[in-house]
């Protein structure tokens, strides 16, 4: 019995990796055949970003069972630290790939550390309270970034929280983070291949964590806190572990995001709670705790508004309606019943009975 279970897990994981790899190969073939539109090609890296975000948030929401609404905040930390590093090192490390890998590591570590620091006080709360506090932290991160001014000149780094004039830069100075104007001129190091590799690494980390001893401890906290505590599981440790890994992965997504665009600004649109809720929507639609579902939901919901461009003025309305319909279709009890009745599985079952 035990052996069967393990092999099922392995098979399940292979399918998840397989989907990503097959999708990658297909898209590469389409690109080399020249039949992928530039819109689609432009969307590939953002798709990777959202997939990583959805998978990483699923770790907090699905596996740890805590509702976090501050995920975009961690993405923001990763994006800004990664882009800051790349801007500073642009002329020092000239090999793009090495610089980008270092930026990814720095972004992940910074976001993970912030996740750890925020997690310590925040994870004492549960449910709605935790959601509200994480929401607040996400906003705080965004707002701090918006008043941050960092410049570099021959004398070193200058830092201010007032405006870029008070940095007192020399004439050769370069304002790297310019408050609300963010970071401009980040080198475009992201590409689809790196994005897919990062997705695979993310999946590897998350799936292995889930199926490890630590993962089972984390899930036991989700399922019954008191029982888990009574058998001696260190609640704080495992909660913090899941939360900071999730934050670090969001940081990776942020670095990927910031290196895909030339200008990076912390607006309510890209790093505010709207984004956090958007990622949560991916997770909920794909199925809480279902990693593969998160990937598919993130891809579908990111593509949808762009594919609806043909409807011009109505597209955001249609997008919202499609979202409602999809949620109902996936999660309404009546519809689940209906789907079961007409599912392929059922039909196969019936035909077998007939035989």
């Amino acid at each position, binding site marked *: 019995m035990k052996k069967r279970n393990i092999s099922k897990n392995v098979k399940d994981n292979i399918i998840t990796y397989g989907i990503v790899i097959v999708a990658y190969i297909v898209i590469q073939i389409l690109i080399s055949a020249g039949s992928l539109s530039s819109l689609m090609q432009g969307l590939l890296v953002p798709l990777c970003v959202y997939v990583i975000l959805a998978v990483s948030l699923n770790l907090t929401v699905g596996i740890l069972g805590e509702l976090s609404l501050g995920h975009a905040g961690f993405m923001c930390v990763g994006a800004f630290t990664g882009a800051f590093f790349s801007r500073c090192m642009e002329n020092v490390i000239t090999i793009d790939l090495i610089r980008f890998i270092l930026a990814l590591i720095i972004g992940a570590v910074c976001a993970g550390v912030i996740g750890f620091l925020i997690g310590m006080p925040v994870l004492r709360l549960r449910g709605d309270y935790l959601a509200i506090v994480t929401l607040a932290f996400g906003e705080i991160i965004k707002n701090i970034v*918006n008043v941050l001014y960092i410049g570099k000149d021959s004398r070193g780094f200058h830092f201010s929280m007032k405006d870029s004039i008070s940095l007192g830069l020399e004439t050769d100075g370069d304002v790297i983070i310019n408050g*609300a104007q963010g970071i401009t001129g980040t080198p475009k190091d992201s590409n689809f291949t790196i994005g897919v590799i990062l997705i695979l690494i993310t999946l590897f980390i998350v799936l292995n964590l889930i199926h490890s001893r630590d993962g089972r401890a984390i899930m036991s906290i989700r399922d019954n806190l008191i029982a888990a505590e009574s058998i001696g599981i260190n609640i704080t440790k495992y909660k913090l572990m899941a939360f900071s890994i999730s934050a670090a992965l969001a940081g990776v997504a942020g670095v990927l995001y910031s290196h895909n665009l030339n200008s990076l600004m912390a607006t309510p649109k890209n790093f505010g709670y709207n984004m956090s809720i958007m990622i949560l929507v991916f997770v909920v639609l794909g199925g809480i705790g279902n990693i593969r579902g998160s990937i598919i939901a993130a891809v579908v919901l990111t593509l949808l508004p762009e594919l609806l461009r043909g409807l011009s*003025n109505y597209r955001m309305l249609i997008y919202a309606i499609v979202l409602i319909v999809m949620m109902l279709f996936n999660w309404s009890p009546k519809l689940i019943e209906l789907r079961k009745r007409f599912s*392929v599985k059922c039909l196969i079952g019936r035909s077998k009975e007939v035989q």
Partner: protein
Amino acid sequence: MKKFKKVMSLTLVAAMTMALLAGCGGSAETAAEGETSESEAVETSVAGEGFKIGAIGPSTGGAAVYGLAVKNGAELAIKEINAAGGINGYQIEYNFQDDECDNEKSVNAYNTLKDWGMQMLVGTTTSGCCIAVAAESANDNMFQITPSGSSVDCIKGNDNVYQVCFTDPNQGIATAQYIGENAVASKVAVIYDSSDVYSSGIYEKFAAEAANQSFEIVSAEAFTADNKTDFSVQLQKAKDAGAELVFLPIYYTEASLILTQANSMGYTPKFFGCDGLDGILNVENFDASLAEGVMLLTPFAADAQDDATKSFVSAYEAAYGETPNQFAADAYDAVYIIKAAVEKSGVTPADSVSDICDKMKAAMAEISVDGLTGEAMSWDEDGAVNKAPKAMQIINGNYSLIQ
């Protein structure tokens, strides 16, 4: 039963992969279709029609006012040009895409337009998006002219990007020089939006230039997009510091609140603004008499009395039922600037995007355009516009030029 579950999950995955493949295949097909229609377009254009001009701006969300103004302004100009026989006999096709004022969506919109076969871009409307899109268009060597992306980063390092509006630094410097040279005031307070690129960009250059001028900045207070309804603290500080003039490098909605609140606390300094203040007289529930005496540097005023503005405003009102703002005027000018550059360079729709851009770049250095937002506009190699700023003052509920 377990076996069935396995089989089921496998078939489902297979189905999903198939769906994914089908999805990709579908998009590939449409893309291919797009390409064929594109090649058709090129063929037909040889026969005498079709420059494809794209435009990008926010037509949904909080900044929709600006995006829609650009959309309509450019559309109006293109209709006029088409009705008059097009550019060098070629008609213009127009396509506007929404970017929700989001950098990432803006790049998506740009890629969509590229798939459509765009040859020149009027856009984007907002500075942040413009920086992101300019990096892409520079890669493709696509001719781009932004009506209102005023940040200097939009054109920095991208020789294919031109601006219709002043850059933020130029506005800040021009304002500081105007106040200093005309001795409007000796003690100046500034209230600006630190979360807005436009506002903080102007403020920084204003403050830098102020050091060289005869006046002194006695208070500089910021607010953010999340906190823009109560300005009593900022006004009180300006009042306590004895400021005779309050400089407002912000948009008109917040400015109208500031004027109302200053009036209710009995503080009556001079107010000075930039082009964002254009439109303040039309704010709902705002007592326009409070704006009396407000001075602003703006390239366009809807109730200016010259013929070009009058005919533009009446045509715009007839077509869209509202008074145009400076964004609409900038976009309208942008299309006519493209027309002038095309006529000068003699490009045809059959040329490749990159060829068009190279020839247009050469033409931009030579042309001089009289538009709604400035007379004898000309461009440097860096893409910034040269035109004289107009200082306006609101007198008797009308904008009038200060001589």
